[in-house]
Every structure is written in structure tokens, then in C-alpha cells.
């Protein structure tokens, strides 16, 4: 036994060393692959030679075969536009000054709802025609070439009406339907990750409506997002777990009252969210979920306003009065406890000290 081990000694040792090195390498590769999965796959994509690259355009990264299966790119647009180095190239600007990014992120494409539409179904057959780059108006019109009903509503909505070649403040299709604002990343409405899934819709509206500077230009002074989040509806949405189903999120969000494609200003009086002058429209809006609501129910709804002494004096002073009363009561109770604790602990410590002295004398 011993001699057999001895005779194979040097070979066995070398084998063991090789095995160890191999194992170490394997560990490094596996853990590295796990840690830098994204990077690794990107690198793998660059070395992949099986995909079709048009001659003379082989500088850009070839599409990841796995990703390529997930979207349509018949004309190989992504062989150039999938090159990340294009991200910095912003030679074309829209009339409002915003740049057109020529880079198209494949990872976004893979999850988008339009992934089997070819690039040319939105971009023209000669997309390199620079005369009419997509701005917010032409973008909504482009979406409207298929989504006709939504486009008709949008054109007439508060967001659609103020769109112009030079003003891109108002939201267009992609501002709500794409988490990144890119038309290449449109999400399915009922996808929980979507920016307009009920759980996320308030945050999506808040991208603009929580910007007091921007809202101030259009006369919206209420803090609509924070007041919604303080309401029963908002809290119910906020506290629903991320994986909540659409049934669990059966609560009013922004669009339930204000409409989505047909959003109007509250003073329009078209039946959504009520007019500023009366409560009839507001009642109709509330009734769409609370069919038995009466006129008093609506007067108790403070909308997005903070409670103030002018509009709601009873609520303001009543609430404020009770707040101070309850704080005073609790403060008084805590004060008596604190007094008692401090006096008792003082005498307790004194007693302990006395006992300690006696003990040491004994």
C-alpha cells in the first residue's frame, strides 16, 4: 500500500495540484460569472460570430442570440443602433432642444410589449430621413396610427392640447407607458412592473405632478401626490405588497378620477373629477365607485387641498384642537410617570448604595 503511494508520488502530487488549480479556476469562473452575469453575457455577445452582421458593419456588437429571439429586427437595425457607443452621439436635436438618442437598449426591447413589431413599423422605411424626427406630437400620432381610440382621446386631453413643437412639458404616450420614457420600452398595462400598473401609477404621474415648479406654470398649486398618498386610496395602494394582484389593488388611483387618455382639467366639467365651481361632477365621479354616495359625502372630500381654516373651518379647528388636547393629555400622563420613575429610582439607588456600604463594612 505504502509503496504504491510512494511510486505514484510525484504524478499524484502533480495531479492534485492541477486538480486544485482547476477547481480554483472553476470557482473563480463560476462566482465571477454569477457576480458579473450582465458583463459576462455582454462580453460573450461581442465574441459571438454566428449572428448575421452586414459586411462593413461588424464593429458593433452582434445581437445576443437569446435576446435576438425575443424581438423582431428584420433589417438588422440593431447591428448599429444596438452599439452602446452610440449613446454619446447626440448629433440630432428636436426643435425643443432635447436630443435624439440613437442607441437602442436591447435589454429593454426584450421586455417590451411591441417587441415583435419591426423597427420600420414605427420608424419610416427610410429611418435615416432626418427631416421629421419624432417629437412628442408626432410620437403620439405615430402611436395613434394603431391605437386610434386612445389617440383621439389624448388629442383632446389636457396633455394633448398643450403639445406643440416647442413645448414638450405635457406627457405623451411614452412618458406614462414606458418606465424609462423610451418608446422602445413600452410595458403591458397589467404587468406589475409597468409604470401604469395601479401600484405604480401615482408615482408615474408624480414624475411631473410632484414638481411644484413645473406645475406652478400651469396653475396647479396643490401637492397632488403627497395628498393622494395621505388619503385612504393612496395608503391602500402604498401598503399593498409589490406582488399584489389587480384585484387586490381595487382602489382609486389618479386615473380612476381624472381619466387617463382623456384627462381634463378639473374646471372643464366633463364628468371627470369634478369642476372647480360645483360638486355635481365630483359626485358623479365618486359614484362611479361608491354608487350610494350623496351630496354631503362629496363636500367631506377635501380633494388634494390641505385642510385649511378658510374652506373647512370645522375640520381645521376641530382637528387642530383635538390634536393639541390629545398631546396635552398624553404629555401629562407621561410627565407623571417620568416624575414617579425619577423619584423612585433615586431612592432605589440610595438604598442600594447604603446596603453596599454596610456589606463592605461587614
Amino acid at each position: 500500500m505504502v509503496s504504491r503511494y510512494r511510486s505514484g508520488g510525484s504524478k499524484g502530487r502533480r495531479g492534485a495540484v492541477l486538480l486544485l488549480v482547476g477547481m480554483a479556476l472553476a470557482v473563480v469562473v463560476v462566482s465571477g460569472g454569477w457576480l458579473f452575469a450582465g458583463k459576462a453575457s455582454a462580453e460573450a455577445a461581442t465574441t459571438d460570430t454566428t449572428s448575421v452582421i452586414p459586411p462593413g458593419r461588424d464593429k458593433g456588437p452582434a445581437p445576443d442570440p437569446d435576446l435576438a429571439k425575443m424581438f423582431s429586427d428584420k433589417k438588422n437595425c440593431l447591428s448599429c443602433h444596438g452599439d452602446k457607443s452610440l449613446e454619446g452621439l447626440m448629433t440630432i436635436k428636436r426643435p425643443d432642444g432635447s436630443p435624439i438618442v440613437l442607441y437602442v437598449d436591447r435589454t429593454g426591447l426584450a421586455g417590451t410589449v411591441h417587441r415583435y413589431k419591426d423597427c420600420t413599423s414605427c420608424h419610416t422605411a427610410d429611418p435615416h430621413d432626418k427631416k421629421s424626427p419624432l417629437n412628442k406630437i408626432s410620437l403620439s400620432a405615430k402611436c395613434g396610427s394603431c391605437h386610434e381610440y386612445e389617440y383621439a382621446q389624448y388629442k383632446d386631453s389636457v396633455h394633448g392640447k398643450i403639445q406643440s413643437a416647442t413645448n414638450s412639458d405635457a406627457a405623451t404616450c411614452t412618458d406614462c407607458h414606458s418606465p424609462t420614457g423610451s418608446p422602445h420600452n413600452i410595458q403591458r398595462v397589467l404587468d406589475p412592473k409597468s409604470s401604469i400598473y395601479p401600484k405604480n401609477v401615482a408615482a408615474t404621474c408624480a414624475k411631473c405632478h410632484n414638481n411644484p415648479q413645473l406645475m406652478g406654470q400651469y396653475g396647479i398649486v396643490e401637492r397632488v401626490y403627497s395628498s393622494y398618498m395621505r388619503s385612504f386610496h393612496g395608503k391602500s395602494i402604498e401598503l399593498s405588497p409589490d406582488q399584489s394582484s389587480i384585484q387586490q389593488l381595487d382602489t382609486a388611483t389618479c386615473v380612476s378620477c381624472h381619466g387617463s387618455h382623456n384627462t381634463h382639467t378639473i374646471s372643464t366639467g366633463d364628468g371627470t373629477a369634478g369642476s372647480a365651481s360645483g360638486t355635481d361632477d365630483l359626485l358623479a365621479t365618486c359614484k362611479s365607485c361608491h354608487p350610494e354616495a350623496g351630496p354631503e359625502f362629496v363636500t367631506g372630500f377635501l380633494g388634494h387641498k390641505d385642510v385649511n381654516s378658510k374652506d373647512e373651518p370645522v375640520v381645521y379647528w376641530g382637528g387642530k384642537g383635538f390634536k393639541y388636547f390629545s398631546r396635552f393629555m398624553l404629555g401629562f400622563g407621561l410627565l407623571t410617570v417620568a416624575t414617579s420613575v425619577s423619584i423612585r429610582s433615586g431612592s432605589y439607588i440610595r438604598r442600594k448604595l447604603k446596603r453596599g456600604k454596610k456589606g463592605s463594612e461587614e
Partner: protein
Amino acid sequence: MGRIIVEEPRVNVSITRFDVQQRAQHILIITSFFVLSITGIPLKFSDWQASALWMAIWHGPENVRIAHHWAAWVMIATCAYHLIYSLTRRPFSTEMFPKPRDIVDFIDDMKHTFRLSKKHPQFGRYSYRNKMAYWVVYPGAVTMIVTGLILLFPIGATAHLPGWSVPLSLMIHSDASILAIGWILFVHMYYAHFSRLTMPFDKSVITGKVPIERYAEEFPREYAMIVAAERPTLRLPKDVSVPGLHPHGASHGVEEPALEEPVGED
């Protein structure tokens, strides 16, 4: 000196402080209050990460809402039952009502607390602290119930009440909840359990029983009354001594309870 101490086995004598009715009511109130608190706090502090986590544990606010409503109905039923119980009880008890004697007790207690007197206050069945706790908590519960019902049935409520009752109820329900939870957690817990005699936990509200020595010390006035009432019939075992009573029963003359005996503690 050895460390082993042989304790004399002794018979425990106790006085029933709370009857079954009172214990059952208190247990129902504790349970419903606890459920209402843990299901209500995350709604008030909805922007805390912890609230979202807590809601996820409950699998969404729907379950939390159901638990809150059920606990509320239990509390409403208990409060209603307590009201009927208190009003129909015979003899009608006025023990919980504030009386002039409470002012004397309060002054005595303050004197003792601030070391102006060694004498402990001589409480009756319910001390002024018990009364204060009761008369803070009961109207508090009524406030929570009324505002809570308005919030539970906002449409039904606004058919009879003005519209502002809903937002006002929300504000009051929210602030009163903090008062209630803070009061129970710190003030009530401290006075009920962290007394020098009951530290760290007073079981009497569950068991209904208070050891007789403690009763004599904690509620001396009521204790004297109980002893006086039971003296003619009380027969105790030989090795049991009851403060205020002769060791061998009631036949050997009368002693007043040791009311002003200074105690080493506190």
C-alpha cells in the same frame, strides 16, 4: 453562611378583587385593543418601510382591514356590555365615581411621593389613579368607536351628518389612537404593574385574586371594610395570619388594620 433557605410552606390567602364579569371584559378589551393597534398603526404611518413589510406579512391591507373591523366590533360589543353591566348591576356601584376623598388621597400621595410624609395614601377600592385611568380610557374608547364608525360607513354617515364629519373623524381617530396607545403602553402599564407591590406584573386582572397582605397595603380602606364585614364568619387555619385580624380567628377581640405601618420599600 449558607445560601440555602428553607421557606415555610404557607397557605395563600387572597381576596377576589375582580369578578368573572370584570375579568372577561378586561381580557376582551386587551385583545381587541392589541389587534386594533397592530392593524391601525401601519395605516397611520403608511410611508414607513416597516409598515409595508408588516402589510406584506398580512398578505395585503385587505386582511389587515378585516382584522381591524372585527377587533373593532369586539371592542364595541365589550364597551356596550360594560355599560349595560354597570347600569344594571345591583347594588348599583358608585365605586368608580370621583369623590371628595380622592382629593385627600391625591394630596397624601403627592406628599408621600415628594418625601414630605412617610404615610402611604389610604386608598379605597379604586384609587384616584384607577379612576383617572378609567375616565380617560372609557371616553377615549367612545371617541374611537364613534369616529371609527363614521370612517367605516362614510356614505351612511354623510346621509345624516354633514360632510366635514368624515375628514374630522379621520383626524380625531388618528390622534386619539396615538393618545390611547401611548397612554396604555406607558401610563396605564406603569401604574397598573410597576407599583412597588406588584412589580413586574400584576396578575390580579387575569386571576382576579390579590394576596391578602398586598390588599391590606394597597387598598387599606377597602380592606378594612372587607375585614369588618367578614370578621364574624371568617375561620382561618392556625398558621395563617391576616393583617387586621387576630391569628386565631375573629373571637379574640378586634384589631384595627395596620394602616400606617411604614414600609421599607419605596
